[in-house]
C-alpha cells in the first residue's frame, strides 16, 4: 500500500552533503523505476495472446533485479527519516514501505507461482509510475525547481494508480494463496510443530492476515485526498508556513 504523502519536506538548512546524497538517491531511483516501467511495457507489447497477458509470461524475470533493488532500497527512507535527512515519521514511512517490500520478497519471490499473474503487471505499473513521479519530484524539489505540473501529477495520479496498485497486490496475494492451499504444498512454506521453540507458523493463514490488513486502504485513500486538497488548493484549507 503505497504512496508516501508529505514524506520529503526537508529541514530548514540541510548540509550540502545531505543535498548531494539525496539528489543521488532520488535520481538513481527515478532511473531505476523508469527502467522497470520500460521493461514492463516492452514485455507487454510483445504478448500476442490473451493467455500470455493474463499470466504475464516472462514479466517477472525481465524486471526482477531492478525491482528488488529499487523496492528494497526504499528501506533507506526509514533511515533518512530517523536521522533527520527528511522530515517525516520513520514509523509511518516503514508502514508505508513494508507492504510492497513484503509483496516482492514474501509473495512473488517466495512463492514463484505468484509471479505469473496479471496482479504483478497491475502492481508494478502503478508502483513505477508513482515512484518515477515521486522521486523525480523529490530530486527537483531539492532545488525548489519542481514544476507545478509535476506537483499536480504527484497529487493526482494516485486517484487511479493507488487502487490499481492495491488491486494488483491483492490479485498476486490471492494467486499465491491458491498455490499454497493444498496441505502438502502449504507444509513446505510453513513451520510445523513439534520443534524446540514450540513455534508453528502457517503461511496460508499468515497471508489471510495480510489480506485483512488491506482493509486499511479506504482510510489511506481518503487521507491522500486530504493531502491533495491541502497541497493543490492551499487557500481553501488553512496551511501552516
Amino acid at each position, binding site marked *: 500500500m503505497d504512496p508516501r504523502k508529505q514524506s520529503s519536506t526537508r529541514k530548514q538548512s540541510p548540509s550540502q552533503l545531505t543535498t548531494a546524497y539525496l539528489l543521488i538517491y532520488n535520481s538513481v531511483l527515478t532511473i531505476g523505476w523508469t527502467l522497470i516501467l520500460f521493461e514492463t511495457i516492452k514485455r507487454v507489447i510483445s504478448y500476442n495472446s490473451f493467455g500470455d497477458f493474463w499470466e504475464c509470461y516472462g514479466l517477472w524475470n525481465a524486471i526482477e533485479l531492478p525491482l528488488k533493488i529499487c523496492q528494497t532500497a526504499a528501506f533507506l527512507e526509514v533511515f533518512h527519516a530517523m536521522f533527520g535527512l527528511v522530515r517525516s515519521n520513520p514509523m509511518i514511512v516503514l508502514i508505508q514501505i513494508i507492504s510492497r517490500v513484503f509483496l516482492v520478497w514474501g509473495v512473488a519471490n517466495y512463492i514463484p507461482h505468484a509471479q505469473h499473474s496479471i496482479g504483478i503487471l497491475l502492481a508494478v505499473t502503478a508502483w513505477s509510475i508513482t515512484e518515477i513521479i515521486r522521486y523525480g519530484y523529490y530530486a527537483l524539489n531539492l532545488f525548489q525547481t519542481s514544476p507545478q505540473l509535476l506537483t499536480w501529477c504527484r497529487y493526482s495520479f494516485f486517484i487511479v494508480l493507488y487502487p490499481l496498485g492495491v488491486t494488483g497486490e491483492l490479485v498476486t496475494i490471492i494467486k499465491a494463496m491458491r498455490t499454497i492451499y493444498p496441505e502438502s504444498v502449504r507444509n513446505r512454506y510453513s513451520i510445523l510443530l513439534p520443534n*524446540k521453540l*514450540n513455534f508453528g507458523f502457517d503461511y496460508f493463514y499468515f497471508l489471510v492476515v495480510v489480506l485483512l490488513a488491506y482493509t486499511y486502504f479506504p482510510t489511506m485513500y481518503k487521507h491522500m485526498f486530504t493531502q491533495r486538497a491541502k497541497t493543490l488548493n492551499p487557500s481553501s484549507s488553512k496551511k501552516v508556513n
Partner: protein
Amino acid sequence: MSGKTQGNTFRLEVLKARGNGVVTTIENISANATIADLKKQVAQKKPKLYPDRQSYRNEPTGKSVKDTQKLSELNVDKTGKIYFKDLGPQIGWSTVFMAEYAGPLVIYLLFYIRPSIIYGSSASSKPMHLAAHLGAACWTFHYAKRILETIFVHRFSHSTMPIFNLFKNCGYYWGFTAMVAYFVNHPKYTPPLFGSAQVFLGLAIFLINELGNLSIHLLLRNLRPPGTTERRIPYPNKTNPFTNLFHFVSCPNYTYEVGSWLGFSLMTQTLTAFLFTIAGTVQMTVWAKQKHRAYKKDFADKYPKQRKSIIPFII
C-alpha cells in the same frame, strides 16, 4: 486583584482546539475559577461533555493544562479564550483493568483443557508435560493476582481513560494469551532442552519476581494516602527486602514483571512467550521512563540521583 466582587468575572469563549468553531460561551466566570470548575460549568451546558472527557489548553496546539490551575494564572481572563479538546467517551480504569485481566485468565484455561475444536478430537486424552501444567498455574496466578490487586491494592491517580484503550489493551492481552497458550498447551509441545532443572529454575525466577512485584505494589499503595492523588518519593522499606530495588530504579514493579515473564519463558521454552516478554519489556520501559522523568521533574534535587528507570545501572 481583589478577588471577591462581581467585577472579577469575565466572558470566556471555549473554542475547539482542532478546526474552527465555538464549543460554548460562558458569560460570567470568575478569574479565580480553576480548570476543574470550568469543566463542571461546561458539563452543565453540554451534558454530553462530562468533566473527565474535557481537556483544555492555552494554545490550539499547546499542552493540556492541569485541573488545579486557575484561569487567572493562565492569563485566560485577559484573552477571554481557551481551547477545548474532546478526549472522547471515557471508561473507568478499573473496568478496563478487569476486562484486560479476566480475558487472559479465561482464554488461557480454555486452551489448557485442550478443546477438540482447536487441537483435534484425541488431544485432550494425550499426556501433558509438567512445564505445560506449571505454565497454566503461573499464568492463572499472575492474572488472578492482578485482578485482586486492581480490587484491593491499586489506587488510581486518574479515574478514567478513553474508551478506545479498552479495545487496544484487550486486543494486546487477549491476543498474546491465545498465542502463548496455543503453543504451550499443544499436544505436540516439546519439553525444555534441559528438562526439569530448566523448568524449576524458570518457575523459581517467576515466583520470586511475582513476590517482588506484589511487594512494590503494596509499598506504592501505602505511599499514597487514601482519597488523595498526592505524590511522594518511594523508598525501600526495612521490613521487605524486595523493596530494595528502589535503590536502583524508579519502577521496580516493572523490573520484577519483566523478570516474571523471563522466568515463564524459560520454563515453557516457547517462542511466543519470549515475544510477549519482549513486547511487555518495551512497553514497560516506555512507561518507566515517563514515570522516572515525572519523578525527577516533581522532586528535582531531592530525587535520588543513582536511580535509573527500569533496568539497574542501564536504563
